[in-house]
């Protein structure tokens, strides 16, 4: 979308002004020019020059960012900015969309996930995903959690499988609520419980990274708080990348924040720094609620 550049170019002059004793860049967007430090030490994911096209539409432009281990990376930005699209690159879910094309390098533990030798099934076992709308399978609670271990052959016998299911539900904070009705359908749970079931299902295959696409947007504040607590605990074992519309949520759960705008990654930084001291005008406008 070339118009993106023009749109923002109308009222933004190439200048710099002083705010909070820091320089705020107020430059027209240039693809691949991200403000802030995109690299981290010992990253699990390392993405460089990632472009995504949906047919003729250029949805993501030259995005480069690292994902750190044992951290929550929040991706924020107005609707249609490409943050979900970028998230879906990380476990190649965009493969399933007709006409979608991903370019650039995405390294998981130093290996390109688009490499011919990289099996997409194995990739998704390593990089789990939790979706916006809770989407448990129309099967029992037990079967929902057992499905992943089963297809990947993680459990040798029934006892081991029971153990995995118990452990996963426990860590997703759902065990106490469902232990007496494991045979009930997963869809009979409340929205928040369903989302925690989806998280339990994801951690049952013991991934290295968990991608969360607005996991709380369909939930009430109490259920949201539970999921956020859960993320803090899960962060000890997994790298988490979360897309969220709520800046408060990003501020609460994440250690690093990335701000996307119309397919460009505008700014990346420590969450505290981004919310108190944004360096790009667009980031500042967004987090202060001037648009978005």
């Amino acid at each position, binding site marked *: 979308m070339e118009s993106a550049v023009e749109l923002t170019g109308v009222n933004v002059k190439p200048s710099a002004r002083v705010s909070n004793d820091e320089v705020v860049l107020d430059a027209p967007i240039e693809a691949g020019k991200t403000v802030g430090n995109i690299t981290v030490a010992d990253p699990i994911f390392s993405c460089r020059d990632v472009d995504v096209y949906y047919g003729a539409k250029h949805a993501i432009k030259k995005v480069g960012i690292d994902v750190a281990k044992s951290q929550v990376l929040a991706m924020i930005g107005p609707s249609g900015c490409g943050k979900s699209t970028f998230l879906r690159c990380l*476990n190649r879910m965009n493969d399933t969309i007709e006409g979608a094309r991903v370019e650039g390098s995405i390294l998981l533990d130093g290996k390109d996930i688009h490499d011919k030798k990289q099996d997409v099934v194995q990739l*998704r076992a390593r990089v789990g*995903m939790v*979706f916006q709308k809770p989407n448990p399978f*129309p099967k029992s609670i037990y079967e929902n959690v057992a499905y992943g271990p089963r297809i990947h052959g993680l459990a040798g016998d029934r006892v081991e499988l029971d153990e995995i299911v118990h452990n996963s539900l426990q860590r997703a904070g759902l065990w106490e609520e469902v232990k007496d009705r494991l045979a009930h359908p997963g*869809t009979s749970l409340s929205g928040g419980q369903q989302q925690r079931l989806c998280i339990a299902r*994801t951690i049952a295959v013991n991934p290295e990274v968990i991608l969360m696409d607005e996991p709380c947007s369909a939930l009430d504040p109490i259920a949201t708080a539970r999921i956020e607590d859960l993320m803090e605990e899960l962060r000890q074992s997994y790298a988490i990348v979360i897309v969220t519309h709520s800046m408060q949520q990003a501020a609460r759960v994440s250690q690093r924040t990335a701000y996307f705008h119309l397919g460009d990654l505008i700014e990346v930084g420590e969450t505290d720094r981004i919310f108190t001291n944004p360096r790009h005008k667009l980031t500042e406008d967004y987090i202060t609620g001037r648009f978005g």
Partner: protein
Amino acid sequence: MNNTNKPIRSAQETQAIVERGLQRRYWAERRFRTYGLAAVVAGMSFLVYLFFVIFSNGMGAFRQTQVRLDVFYDPAVIDPSGNRNRDDLLAADYQALVRAALKAKFPEVEGRAATRELSRLASGSASFDLQKRVVADPGLIGKSEPVWLLASDAVDLLKKGHIDRALPAEQRPLSDQQLQWTDKLSAEGALALKFNTTFLTHGDSREPEKAGIWGAVVGSFFTLILTLLLSFPIGVASAIYLEEFARKNRWTDVIEVNINNLAAVPSIVFGLLGLAVFIAFFGLPRSAPLVGAMVLTLLTLPTIIIASRAALKAVPPSIREAALGMGASKIQMVMHHVLPLAMPGMLTGTIIGMARALGESAPLLMIGMVAFIVDIPKGVTDSATVLPVQVYLWSDSPERGFTEKTSGAIIVLLAFLVVMNTTAVILRKRFERRW
């Protein structure tokens, strides 16, 4: 337009306009409801009339007049050699036993012509019943027992009130003499309407009282089972491939258009295709349920494919994403999650297709399933006919007795349909799940 900040009209004016329109809207709704109700009532009354006619005509087919005769199993007739050889027992002249039994009932009858007239009261198949009894139990030979035997179709028609006694003798199938005998038998209680097991257990016959529907039922059963076994897996697999795996390009568009068009091709064309390809080219047997099923498969495939694709499309994408996100391969996603959810829709399509296949006769005429076949088919390559073709055959027969057989066959066809669809609906219910 000079002051755009003010509404164009006041709230009261707006309400007045809305109120004026309300009446019209309600009228439109009421009118539409009336049309709908009228259509339903008209349709239902035609249906009720149709069922009434079929059942009132057809119930007669399930009851058949039988005559009670005291049969003497004469060893001189059955087994003159006395060694109880099975072949001899089969070859004996049982007609003579029937004749003798009738003569015993009416000892006053004398002369060849009169005896022949008398023997026409019993059905030609009565002798087969006796043969069966004797072969099953040779101990009967030399004994005497009362047996209920099939009466001829003319006696049956009289008993059911289809023959006008006031007509001159040459216009009736029964002579005055025969009428008297029949009345005498009736008065003795030796003539009765009994449940017609022959109709439900025998194959076709040229004689109405011996004609049964079982051959056609078995033929239909074989044909439909094979059709289901062929068309359901092929249809569902095609739908899955086209919907989930095939690239969307011009070729798949062409295929899709063609499948939709095939659903509208007249069925007799499929019959011609089956004749040319399956019978003429591949040399498969004529009149066989196997070929019939292959033709009907071609006929039902488009229906099943279209319904199955619609069912697959209706599975929410969130379930697919959930499965793929868990690391399921595409085939695992389809088999574990998408297919079970799409199954009710697929079964609906299959029910529609199978119901159509059950009622289809035109393409089967082309491949020879219209032949007169007495034997019950034992396998899928035996000659057979199917229920709708049997209906067609009987409706075409000149004998008066076949009229009620035709309606009876329609009742059996409808019962077959109801059983088949009920099974399918129960099956579908078991697959239905919430998501």
